[in-house]
């Protein structure tokens, strides 16, 4: 299995109920998996645990055959090789589009970096916007920059946290298609979180439903909430 999560548990404070409770599931290489659940069901937390932004209270995560979280192991976020598109995109406001995209390419030499930047700009169709700052772009363009930035260092998996929630309804369907095309072209394993069934229907190969941290089922097993 490409991603193997076993008995993962998490809570924000000792006083609270666990947000995620002994959760296990797996993803195959190249799969685009959608997670659907109501707000507060722990789906964003799951992404943050996978990314290394939160620490689980128990359980283990393996990524591409490597143990990244276990009882005695914790690989820091910056060493996991995980890409993430944030709900608010988190584009650095003081950097241009190309500077944002190149931010994670520090291991590359200059010509290589330039080549990768051009590839990314082409992939998301933003060649003319390279010198702009994030606030000079539309919501959909910002989202594509965020996607390009996350994909540029060739992460082993891409995590997307409600990437369409900030977009106008009439733009949404168009941008969903775009994102699906980009993901297919990039040929990447992707875990995608949304509260909107239509988002995951349009993009994902497989859908998982979670509710308050416990796995309910996938569509293949035809269990719905």
């Amino acid at each position: 299995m490409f991603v193997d999560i076993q008995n993962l548990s998490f809570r924000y404070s000792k006083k609270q109920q666990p947000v995620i409770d002994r959760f296990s599931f797996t993803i195959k290489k190249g799969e685009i998996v959608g997670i659907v659940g109501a707000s507060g069901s722990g789906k964003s937390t799951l992404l943050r645990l996978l990314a290394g932004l939160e620490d689980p209270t128990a359980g283990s995560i393996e990524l591409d055959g490597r143990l990244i979280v276990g009882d005695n192991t914790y690989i820091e976020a910056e060493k996991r090789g995980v890409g993430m598109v944030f709900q608010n995109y988190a584009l650095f406001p003081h950097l241009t589009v190309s500077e944002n995209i190149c931010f994670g390419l520090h291991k590359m030499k200059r010509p290589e970096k330039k080549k990768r930047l051009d590839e990314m700009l082409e992939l998301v169709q933003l060649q003319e916007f390279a010198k702009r700052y994030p606030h000079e772009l539309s919501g959909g363009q910002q989202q594509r920059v965020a996607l390009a930035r996350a994909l540029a260092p060739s992460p082993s998996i891409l995590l997307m946290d409600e990437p369409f929630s900030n977009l106008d309804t009439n733009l949404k369907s168009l941008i969903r298609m775009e994102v699906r095309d980009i993901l297919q072209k990039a040929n990447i394993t992707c875990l995608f979180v949304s509260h909107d069934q239509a988002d995951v229907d349009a993009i994902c190969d497989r859908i998982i439903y979670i509710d308050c941290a416990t796995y309910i089922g996938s569509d293949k097993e035809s269990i719905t909430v």
Partner: protein
Amino acid sequence: MKTSIWLREIRRRANSWFIITMLGALVIIMPVAYVVLSFFQPTGENWEHIKEFLLADYVKGSVILVGSVGFLSTTIGLVLAWIVAAYEFPLRKQFKWLLIIPLAIPPYIAAYTYSTMTSYTGVIQSLFRNYFDYQFTPGTIEIMSLRGAVFVLTLFLYPYVYMIALNYFEKQSASYIESAKTLGLNGFQMFFRLGLPIARPAIIAGSMLVIFEVLSDYGVASFFGVRTISTAIFQTWFGMYDINAAMRLAAWLLVIILGIFMLERFLRKGRKYDTNVTQSRPLARKKLRGWTAWLASLSCSIVFFSAFLIPFVQLIYWSLKTYEKVWRADFITLITNSLVAALIGALIISFFAILAARTINLYPSASSNLLARIMTSGYAVPGAVVAIGVLALFITLDEKLAFIYPKLLDVESGSLVLSMSIAMLITGYVIRFMAQGFNSVESGYTKVPPSYREASFLLGRSMTYTFWKVEFPLLRGSILIGFALAFLEIMKELPLTLLLRPFNFDTLATRTYQYAIDERIYEAAPSSLLLICLSILSVIIILRFEEK
């Protein structure tokens, strides 16, 4: 949670950022802890003498001064803030920032300026005698003793209340005021029934600042001969050379401050307003017409003239008379001393402020709240108390390190190294004014969402790189404001500098004070003026960046 997971967490968080922050917090808390510990030490006969004959007077003096100045400057600051925030009148925009400028004049300079101006030979009485042939009865207008201290401290500390209240009225109250208008309240009703009650947190915060400044004051009270606990600490130290008794006084002052904190808690209890109204928008000001408009301008002018322009012009006049006499080679040394001490102090403050604010932002928890409390505790501790704690600590350190000095440095065994160095003074500054730097950086962090940092980590960047390339550029303004605030306070600081400076180390502040208590008022003017100009510069930097 399993033990192995606990250990995993500890290993992760114990990085160099965290360790340095903790060291900084330790340095801040040590001297204060030292003072508190003096409660458990035996005292000599000096303390018995102080306790029996003097303590009651000192406490009474401090209480009267704190009470009157606290009430008056809060009133002035609050009324001015309301006028500027809620009404439109001639020169409102200029007054908005002109009314902050008095902050640049250290109160002890204002004290000697005003007391000289209002004396028999001063400009006011001579003017009336020579041109209007009018003689004041002695004692009518002279600014002296307790009355003088209250007048001066009120006039030069009100900006603390003004700034906080103005910010509050401008940003927070629009929706309340608009709804009050629709309910038919007039101007005065609006102020008393709405402005006052809703601004209560801001009023308390502002007057707390004033109270701490008054308790910390040494220059004004000693110039006017008012007995307070702070002046008593000086007298015990320099008059009786009894550091233990001084320490005991300092510990009692800390008890009073603790009492004030508890009072503050009590006053705020049950009055938790949500100050974070999400749709905060500027208040639509009401345009004043006719005499009311002029009245508003006039009130602002009176305060600005008395709290800045009149003493400032007087100082210029005196400086013109004496600068040739005073301007000696060592004047340059004074300026360099002041600048270097303030720059180093402010730099160290900014450094630890960034570290602490970042740690708190990165790992929000109960213990990081405690860290924030410790970092900011210095602003409430009077300069004399900080000084005495730092001195005691440094002397102890010197005793403990005495064996190593002859090996490392070219000194005889048994000599004092740390407690004779400028490091002691700088440590005092850092403890006392850390809050200025920290609060500014911390509020800056509220504008940097955590997802920026997280995105950078996920792109494979280290913590340090993330700080320099992502957080720092976005925090620059806040860091600069914190730096300028700390710089301003250090430049002005008198009691700490007097107590902790190395032998023969004079700054603009100490020289000014020296001239003033030697009754060489005119000679004190040039250094005062320089000090004020440098302070104004920092105030302008602060205002410019706050506008952004």
